[in-house]
C-alpha cells in the first residue's frame, strides 16, 4: 500500500489529498495538510475518484484511438500512428486551403494540468500559426480576468484563500461558495467566527445568506444597478478613503458622474433592495478595518459582466481595501485548473504569463525560443470558444480540436452549438470520456486521466501545486501533451518532451511572472503563488504591494457603467427567469462525478429545477414531481425542487444534467468584451405533467437510451 500526493481535480480550492493505492487500484482518498485545505476535503475530494475504474455509470472511458472516416458513419478503432497521421493530414489540408485562422483549438481547465496547456497553445501559435486557442474560462471567470486586468492589472484573486478568514468584512456577490467551493465556504464560516461582518448579495437564500449580517436579496439581472448604488453611497456619504483615492487611483470625477443617477433610493424598483439596506451594507463595508469582495458566476455569466467586475474592483479601490493583508478582490475560480489554463496562455489574446499576442517583442521572444520565424506568428487576437458556433456557420472556422472540454453540454444554447458543429469540416476530440461532444467527433484521441499522470495545477488563489501519478492507465491511452507533440511532429514541427518538468522549465524561462516557481520549490505540499519572478522569491500571497497597480499609469482605474437590462426578459408566454447554478455533489459537465458511485447515488438524472413554493403552487406542481421546462430554444424534463430559499419569479437549474440539460434553454447574449454568455438569465415557462408515471418512465428510458448509445459508440 502506498500513499500518493495529489490535488483534487474538481473545484479551484486546490485541496491537497493522498490517494491510497494497492495493486494499481485506488482504495480511498485521505485529506492532506495542503495550504488551502488544511486536512479537510468535501465529498467530491473524498468520494470522487472511482470514475478512474471505468464504472460506466454514466458514460465509458475512451480506451483506444478511433476515427469516423465519413460524416454520419461509425467510429473505427485505429492505431495511434493512423490517428496521428490522419489528424495531421486533415489539419494541414484545412490550414493550406483556408488559412491558420480556420482552425480552432482548446486547452483544458481540468485534470490534464499546466504542462499540457502550455503545449497546446504552443501547438496553436507555433505550429498552426493562429491565436485561436481558448478554454472554458470564457464561460466562467473570463469577465473577471478582463475587468480586473483593466482596473487593477491582474486578472486573478488579489488575496489568498487562507487569508479570507482574517478579513473583518466579506462582501459576497453572486457567489454560492457552499455549493461551488465547500473548502472556501469553510473559510467564510471561520471569518464569521472571528467576528467578520458578512454581506451577501444574492437572489436566493444561499447557505452564506443564512449566516450573513446583511442579505441583499436582489432581483435577478440587476447587478450593475446595485453596484452603482454601492458606489453612489460611498461617494454620497463620504464613506470612501479620499487620501487613498487621491494617491492611488484615477477617474473619480467620471465615476461620480456615471453613478449620479443611481442613488439607492432611485434604484429600489430595479434591484428590489431597499435604499436603507444598500446604505447600511456600504456603511458596514467601508467601516471595516479590512474588507474583501468575493464573487462568482452570479457576476460573470451576464451580458453585462466585465462592467460589474470593474465596479466591484472600484468598491475595493474607493475604500483602500487592496495592497495589504486581509483585504482584496476575490473572483474565486471554478475549475481546478482554470486559473492555470489562463496562466499558460490558452486564451486568444495572451501568451503564457499574460504576455500580449499583439506585442511584436513578445511574439519575437516566443518565436525565437520555439525556433520559428516571428513573421509566421499570428499578430491578431484569436477566436473565443463562444464565437465558434457563429463563425462555423459563417464558414470561417472549419476545424475544431477540442481537448478536455464538453461544449455540447457546457455552452449556452446547445441547439445553436449543435448547428455550428454540423457546419464544421473536421472535429478532433481528445478526452478521457465519451462525452456528448466526443460522440460528434471525426477523430477521438484517448488521454490519460488525473490520477494516471503527474503535473502542476494552479488553484484559484494563484497557487501552483504539484500532483503525482497514482496508478498506471488501462487501455491504449497517451498523456495529452504527448498526443499534441506527435501531431505537431507529423505536421512538420518536431516536438519532443521527456517529462512534465521538461515542459515546465521551458515555460518558466519564457514567463517572468512564473520564473521562480521550480518543481523543487513546490515540493510535496508547497503552494507557490505568482508573481514569483526569481529563484529565491517565496511567492506572493497578496498583490499590489505599496498600492502600485499593474496598469499603464500604475494607478487603479475607477469605473462604473450604466446598467443594461438582460437580453431576454420574462413575458406572458415565458413568465419565469431561468438562472443556471451549481450543486455541491457534481462537477462541470459531470463526465467524472457522474461516473462516481457515491456522488451519482446522491443525485442523478434528470436533475432538478429549484423553484419557489408560490410559483410551484400556481403551476400545480408538487415537490419532486417531474415537469417540463421550456424556453424559446428548447424543452427539457426536470424534477421540481420546491423550496422557500428560492426567490419568486425565478427558477434555477444546473448544467451538469445530460437529460435535463438546461443549456438547451439558455441563450448566448455575449458580454461585448469577454464574450461570456448570459447563462444566468433567460425567460422560461414550467408546465406540470399530469401523468407522473409516464414522466418517470420517459425520463428513465431516455436516460438509458442515451447511456447505451454512448456505450455502443465506444464499443464499436
Amino acid at each position: 500500500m502506498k500513499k500518493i500526493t495529489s490535488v483534487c481535480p474538481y473545484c479551484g480550492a486546490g485541496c491537497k489529498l493522498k490517494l491510497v493505492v494497492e495493486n494499481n487500484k485506488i482504495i480511498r482518498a485521505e485529506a492532506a495538510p495542503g495550504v488551502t485545505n488544511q486536512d479537510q476535503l468535501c465529498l467530491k475530494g473524498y468520494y470522487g475518484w472511482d470514475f478512474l475504474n471505468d464504472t460506466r455509470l454514466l458514460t465509458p472511458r475512451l480506451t483506444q484511438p478511433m476515427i469516423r472516416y465519413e460524416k454520419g458513419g461509425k467510429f473505427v478503432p485505429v492505431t495511434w500512428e493512423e490517428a496521428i497521421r490522419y489528424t495531421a493530414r486533415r489539419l494541414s489540408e484545412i490550414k493550406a486551403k483556408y488559412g491558420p485562422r480556420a482552425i480552432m483549438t482548446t486547452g483544458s481547465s481540468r485534470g490534464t494540468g499546466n504542462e499540457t496547456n502550455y503545449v497546446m497553445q504552443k501547438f496553436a501559435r507555433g505550429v498552426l500559426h493562429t491565436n485561436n486557442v481558448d478554454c472554458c474560462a470564457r464561460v466562467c471567470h473570463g469577465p473577471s480576468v478582463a475587468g480586473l486586468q483593466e482596473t487593477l492589472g491582474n486578472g486573478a484573486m488579489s488575496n489568498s484563500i487562507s487569508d479570507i478568514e482574517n478579513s473583518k468584512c466579506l462582501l459576497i456577490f453572486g457567489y454560492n461558495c457552499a455549493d461551488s467551493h465547500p473548502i472556501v465556504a469553510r473559510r467564510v464560516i471561520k471569518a464569521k467566527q472571528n467576528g467578520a461582518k458578512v454581506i451577501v448579495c444574492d437572489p436566493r437564500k444561499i447557505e452564506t445568506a443564512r449566516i450573513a449580517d446583511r442579505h441583499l436579496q436582489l432581483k435577478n439581472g440587476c447587478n450593475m444597478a446595485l453596484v452603482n448604488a454601492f458606489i453612489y453611497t460611498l461617494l454620497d456619504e463620504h464613506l470612501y478613503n479620499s487620501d487613498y483615492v487621491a494617491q492611488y487611483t484615477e477617474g473619480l470625477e467620471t465615476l461620480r458622474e456615471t453613478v449620479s443617477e443611481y442613488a439607492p433610493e432611485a434604484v429600489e424598483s430595479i434591484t428590489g433592495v431597499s435604499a436603507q439596506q444598500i446604505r447600511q451594507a456600504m456603511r458596514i463595508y467601508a467601516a471595516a478595518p479590512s474588507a474583501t469582495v468575493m464573487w462568482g458566476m452570479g457576476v460573470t455569466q451576464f451580458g453585462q459582466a466585465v462592467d460589474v467586475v470593474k465596479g466591484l474592483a472600484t468598491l475595493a479601490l474607493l475604500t483602500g481595501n487592496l495592497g495589504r493583508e486581509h483585504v482584496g478582490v476575490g473572483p474565486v475560480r471554478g475549475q481546478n485548473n482554470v486559473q492555470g489554463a489562463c496562466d499558460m496562455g490558452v486564451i486568444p489574446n495572451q501568451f503564457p504569463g499574460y504576455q500580449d499576442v499583439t506585442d511584436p517583442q513578445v511574439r519575437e521572444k516566443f518565436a525565437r525560443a520555439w525556433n520559428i520565424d516571428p513573421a509566421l506568428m499570428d499578430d491578431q487576437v484569436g477566436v473565443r470558444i463562444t464565437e465558434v458556433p457563429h463563425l462555423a456557420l459563417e464558414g470561417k472556422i472549419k476545424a475544431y480540436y477540442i481537448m478536455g472540454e464538453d461544449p455540447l453540454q457546457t455552452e449556452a444554447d446547445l441547439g445553436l452549438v449543435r448547428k455550428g458543429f454540423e457546419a464544421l469540416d473536421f472535429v478532433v476530440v481528445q478526452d478521457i470520456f465519451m462525452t456528448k461532444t466526443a460522440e460528434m467527433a471525426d477523430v477521438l484521441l484517448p488521454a490519460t486521466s488525473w490520477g494516471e499522470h503527474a503535473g502542476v495545477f494552479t488553484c484559484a488563489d494563484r497557487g501552483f501545486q504539484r500532483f503525482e501519478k497514482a496508478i498506471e492507465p488501462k487501455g491504449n491511452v497517451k498523456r495529452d501533451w504527448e498526443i499534441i507533440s506527435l501531431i505537431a511532429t507529423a505536421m512538420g514541427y518536431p516536438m519532443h518532451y521527456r517529462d512534465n518538468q521538461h515542459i515546465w522549465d521551458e515555460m518558466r524561462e519564457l514567463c517572468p511572472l512564473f520564473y521562480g516557481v521550480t518543481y523543487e520549490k513546490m515540493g510535496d505540499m508547497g503552494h507557490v503563488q505568482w508573481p514569483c519572478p526569481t529563484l529565491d522569491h517565496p511567492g506572493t500571497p497578496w498583490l499590489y504591494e505599496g498600492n502600485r497597480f499593474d496598469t499603464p499609469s500604475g494607478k487603479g482605474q475607477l469605473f462604473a457603467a450604466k446598467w443594461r437590462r438582460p437580453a431576454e426578459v420574462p413575458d406572458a408566454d415565458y413568465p419565469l427567469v431561468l438562472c443556471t447554478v451549481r450543486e455541491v455533489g457534481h462537477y462541470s459537465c459531470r463526465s467524472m462525478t457522474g461516473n462516481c458511485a457515491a456522488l451519482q447515488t446522491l443525485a442523478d438524472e434528470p436533475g432538478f429545477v429549484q423553484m419557489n413554493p408560490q410559483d410551484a403552487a400556481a403551476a400545480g406542481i408538487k415537490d419532486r414531481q417531474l415537469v417540463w421546462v421550456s424556453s424559446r430554444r428548447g424543452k427539457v424534463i426536470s424534477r421540481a425542487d420546491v423550496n422557500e430559499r428560492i426567490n419568486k419569479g425565478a427558477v434555477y437549474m444546473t448544467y451538469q444534467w445530460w437529460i435535463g440539460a438546461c443549456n438547451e434553454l439558455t441563450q448566448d447574449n455575449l458580454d461585448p468584451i469577454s464574450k461570456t454568455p448570459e447563462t444566468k438569465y433567460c425567460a422560461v415557462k414550467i408546465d406540470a405533467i399530469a401523468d407522473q408515471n409516464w414522466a418517470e418512465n420517459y425520463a428513465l428510458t431516455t436516460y438509458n437510451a442515451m447511456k447505451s448509445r454512448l456505450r455502443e459508440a465506444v464499443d464499436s
Partner: protein
Amino acid sequence: MNRFIIADASKCIGCRTCEVACVVSHHEEQDCASLTPQTFLPRIHVIKGVNVSTATMCRQCEDAPCASVCPNGAITRDNDFVHVHQERCIGCKTCVVACPYGAMEVVVKPVVRSMGSGLNVVSEKAEANKCDLCYHQPNGPACIQACPTNAIVCIDRNALEQLSLEKRRRAALDDISSLML
C-alpha cells in the same frame, strides 16, 4: 451518560459529505466505489429549511423510547450508546414510531444466506438503522472526521457541562453588562 453526535447549524453548509461518510463507514469493505442507491442508507440526514441547514441523527437518549418499545429486546444500552443488535431485530418498526427525532429507520438490506450443502440464497433482511457512534471504528464517528466545516461534534458529559457553564456565564454577564448601560 450516553455520548451523542450533534451538528452546529451555524457551520453546516448542507453538503452531505457526512451522509456518504456514514454509509462508507458502515460498508463492509469501507469502499465508496461500490455504493448503490439500494445500499445508500445513511444514519445521518442533512435537513434544509429557509434559515437552517443541519444534520440530524440519534440523540442516544438515556431512557430511549426505541429500546423501551422493542418487543424482542434488540435495542440495549452498551458502552455509552443505544445499540441495535441486528440479529435480534425483526423489522417490526415499533421503534421508528416511538422515536421523537425521526432518527430510527427500518431498512431492508440484501443478504446472502447459507442454506447448507453449499447452497447460498440471496434474501432480504430488515434492520433498525440508526447512529451507532461508529463504535467499530478506531478513530470514532466518520461523519465528525469528514465534515469539511467541522460542524459535527460528539458531546459527552464533560462537553455538555462545559456548554451549560458557558451559557450560564453568558446569560448572567451579558444581562448585567446591559443593565449597567
